C-alpha cells in the first residue's frame, strides 16, 4: 500500500514537472501587463523585454544604462541575449515575447516584409528623424517606411601597425587599392611570421561583408541600386574585384590558409602581432587597446579604407505582437536620443548616427589618439556605400560566400565563369521574392 502511494506520488510529481517544463518560460517579474499607462510617462508595473545580441558589447552597454530608462518610465527592462533563430521563432509564432528586437541591417527588409516589425513613421517626430544622417535612416527603411531606430551605423576601417609602417618608411595609410596591395606585399615578412593583411575567404557570411567593401572600391554592386529587381554582380567590376583579391593570395601578401579565415581569425592574428594591416569593424579599436589580450597596444593607427566601403546598421525595432507597444516606442526613442547616441559614440569611439550627437561626441573626446580614430571612422561613413538590400538578402549572401570560397581556394580559376554562374543563381534567388 505504501509502495503504491509512493509510486502514484512520484508519477504525479513527474507529470507536473513535465507540464511545468513545457509551459512558456517567463521569469518571475516579467509578466506582461496591459500597455495602457495610468498617466503619461508612467509605465509602472510593465516589463519591456528586448532581444539583444548575446554578449554583444553594445547590449552590455545598454544593460549598464537601462536603469536611467527604468527611473524615467517606472517600467522594468529586461535585455535577453537571443540569437537570430530564437527571435525568428518567436516572430513566426507571433508570441509577442520580445517587445523590442535588435536588428542587423540586412535583416530589416525581410522582417518588415513578413510583418515581424512595426512601422514607426507615426510614432517618431519628423524633427527627430531629420537629426539622423540620411544614410542611417535609409538603412532602417523599407518600402518608404521607417521600421527601426538606428543606434549604430558603421563600416569596416583599416587598422595598421604604426611601428611596421615606420620601419618600412610608409608615412601614411593606403589611400588607393593599389597602395593597399603594394604595402601588404612589402610588409609581409614570413620569417618574422608577419603578413601584410588578410582577405577573408571562408564560406561564411562575414567574409562577404569584406568582399562587398572591395566590390564598392571597384564601383561594383551586388543588387543594382537603379533597379533592385536586378542582380548587378555579373560585371567587369566584380571580375576586377576578384582578380584584385587573388593577387594577394598569389603573391603571398596574405597567409596561405586565408581562404578559411573569417573575422575572428583576422582579429586574433592582428592582436597577436601577425598582421601589418587588417580591415575590421570599429569595435576592434577597444580590443586593440586591451592590454590583457593585445600584443599591439600603442602601435596601431586607424584609417578609412581606400576609396569606399560598405556601411551597415544596427537598430531597435518593435514587434507588432508586443503587448507593450507604447513602452517599446519610448525605449526606441530614448535609446537613440541625441544624448544616448552621443554617450555611445564617446564610449565606443564609433561614429554617431545623429548630427547633433556627432558634433558633441567629437568635441568631448579629449584623447588625441581616440579623436584621430573617430575622425577616420567618420570618414568611413562619409565614403560609405549602403548595399541595396532585398527581402532574401541572407540567401544571396550565402550564395556569394560559396563563390568567394571557390575562387579563394582555387577550386575554380575561371573567375569570369564563376561570377557569371553565381550571378545567374543570384538572379533566380532574387526572382523568388519579386
Amino acid at each position, binding site marked *: 500500500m505504501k509502495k503504491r502511494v509512493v509510486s502514484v506520488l512520484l508519477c504525479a510529481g513527474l507529470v507536473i514537472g513535465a507540464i511545468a517544463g513545457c509551459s512558456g518560460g517567463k521569469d518571475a517579474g516579467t509578466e506582461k501587463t496591459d500597455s495602457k499607462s495610468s498617466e503619461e510617462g508612467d509605465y509602472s508595473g510593465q516589463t519591456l523585454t528586448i532581444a539583444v545580441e548575446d554578449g554583444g558589447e553594445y547590449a552590455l552597454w545598454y544593460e549598464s544604462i537601462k536603469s536611467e530608462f527604468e527611473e524615467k518610465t517606472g517600467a522594468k527592462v529586461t535585455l535577453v541575449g537571443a540569437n537570430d533563430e530564437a527571435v525568428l521563432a518567436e516572430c513566426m509564432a507571433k508570441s509577442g515575447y520580445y517587445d523590442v528586437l535588435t536588428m542587423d541591417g540586412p535583416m530589416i527588409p525581410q522582417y518588415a516584409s513578413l510583418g515581424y516589425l512595426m512601422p514607426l513613421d507615426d510614432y517618431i517626430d519628423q524633427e527627430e528623424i531629420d537629426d539622423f544622417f540620411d544614410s542611417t535612416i535609409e538603412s532602417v527603411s523599407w518600402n518608404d517606411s521607417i521600421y527601426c531606430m538606428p543606434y549604430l551605423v558603421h563600416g569596416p576601417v583599416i587598422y595598421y601597425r604604426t611601428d611596421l609602417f615606420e620601419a618600412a618608411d610608409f608615412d601614411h595609410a593606403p589611400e588607393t587599392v593599389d597602395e593597399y596591395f603594394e604595402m601588404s606585399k612589402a610588409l609581409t615578412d614570413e620569417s618574422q611570421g608577419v603578413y601584410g593583411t588578410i582577405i577573408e575567404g571562408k564560406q561564411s557570411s562575414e567574409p562577404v561583408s569584406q568582399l562587398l567593401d572591395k566590390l564598392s572600391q571597384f564601383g561594383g554592386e551586388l543588387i543594382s541600386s537603379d533597379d533592385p529587381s536586378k542582380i548587378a554582380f555579373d560585371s567587369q567590376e566584380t571580375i576586377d574585384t576578384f582578380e584584385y583579391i587573388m593577387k594577394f593570395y598569389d603573391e603571398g601578401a596574405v597567409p596561405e590558409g586565408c581562404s578559411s579565415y573569417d573575422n575572428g581569425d583576422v582579429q586574433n592574428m592582428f592582436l597577436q602581432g601577425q598582421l601589418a594591416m587588417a580591415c575590421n569593424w570599429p569595435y576592434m579599436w577597444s580590443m586593440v587597446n586591451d592590454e590583457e589580450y593585445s600584443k599591439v597596444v600603442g602601435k596601431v593607427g586607424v584609417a578609412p579604407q581606400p576609396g569606399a566601403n560598405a556601411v551597415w546598421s544596427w537598430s531597435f525595432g518593435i514587434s507588432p505582437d508586443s503587448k507593450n507597444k507604447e513602452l517599446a516606442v519610448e525605449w526606441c526613442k530614448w535609446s537613440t536620443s541625441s544624448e544616448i547616441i552621443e554617450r555611445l559614440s564617446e564610449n565606443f569611439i564609433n561614429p554617431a548616427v545623429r548630427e547633433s550627437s556627432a558634433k558633441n561626441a567629437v568635441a568631448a573626446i579629449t584623447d588625441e589618439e581616440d579623436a584621430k580614430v573617430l575622425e577616420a571612422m567618420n570618414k568611413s561613413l562619409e565614403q560609405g556605400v549602403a548595399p541595396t538590400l532585398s527581402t532574401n538578402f541572407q540567401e544571396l549572401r550565402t550564395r556569394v560566400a560559396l563563390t568567394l570560397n571557390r575562387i579563394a*581556394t582555387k577550386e575554380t580559376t575561371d573567375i569570369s565563369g564563376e561570377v557569371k554562374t553565381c550571378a545567374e543563381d543570384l538572379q533566380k534567388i532574387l526572382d523568388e521574392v519579386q
Partner: protein
Amino acid sequence: MRQKKYVVLKQRRKRTGILLCIPAFLVVAYAIYMLGYALVMSFNSNMGVLSGEYHFVGWENYRKVLESEEMRGVVGNTLLYAAATIVTELGIGLLVSAALRRNIKGSQAAKVCIMLPMMMAPIASGTIWRWMLTDRYGIVNHLLGLLKIDGPMWLADKLAAKFAILFVSVWTAAPFVILVLLASISSVSDDIIEAARIDGAGGLQVYWNIIFPHLKSAIAVILLIRIPDALKMYDIVYILTDGGPANATQVISFYVYNKGFTSLKFGEAAAASFLLFLFIAAFSVFFNSLVNRNKKKGR
C-alpha cells in the same frame, strides 16, 4: 486463496508499472506531435509557414528537395561521413576496450581521461578544435612542425577539412563506444580465457573466438545509436567549417538548417528533415529485425 492473492499482486504490479510509464508516454506523445507538426509543415508553402497560414502545396517541397543538386551532393557527403566515422569509432573502441580490459596500473585514470570528451558540449569541443586546427596559430600544425611535418590547411583544403571533421567527431563520440564495449568485454569470464590459453590459443584467437562474440550485441547497440547520430551531425560542421570549403563538408542537417533559418524556406527544410527521419527510421527497423533474426538463429 493463494491463487487470488497472486492475481491481485500481478494486477497491482501491472498498474504500478503503467503509472510509472506515464511520464515516458508524455515524452513519446510530445515527440510524435513534433514529428506530425514537421510533416504538416512539409506540405505547407514556405510563405505559409512564415505568415502562420496554411497553403497546401502537395509534394512540391519534396520534389524541390529531391531534385536539388545541392541536396544530392550533401547526401553523398553525409553517408560517406557516417560510414567513415562509425568504422573509425568501432576500430578505436575495440582496440581501447581490449587494452583497458586488464586492470593494469593507470587503467582507471585512462578510463577517466577517455570519458572527458564525452562530457563536453559538442559546440565547446568544436570551438577548441577550430582554434587548434587553424594553420597559422593552431597548436596541431605547430606540433607537426616540431616533428618536421608540414601540416595541411586543415580548414582550407577540401580533403583535410573532411579529415578534420571526421577526427573531431570521432574524438567526441569514441568515448561512448569505448564505454559500451568496455562494459560488455568486462563480462567475459577470465576462466574461459585462461582455459583457452592453456589449450594453446594465441591472443588473436582468444579475442576473435571468445571475446568478440560477446561484443556482438554491444556492437549492435552502438550501431543502432551512433548511425542515426552520425547522420544527424551538425554542430561540429557549423563550428569548424560552416559547410566549406566550397560545400565539401556540407551534411544533411546543415543543409536543413540553412534552408530553414538562412533561406527561410521552412517548408522545404521540413521536407528534407522528414526524408532524413524516414531514412533513419527505415534503417533502425531493418537493423533491429536483422539483429533479432540473428538472435533467434543463435538460439
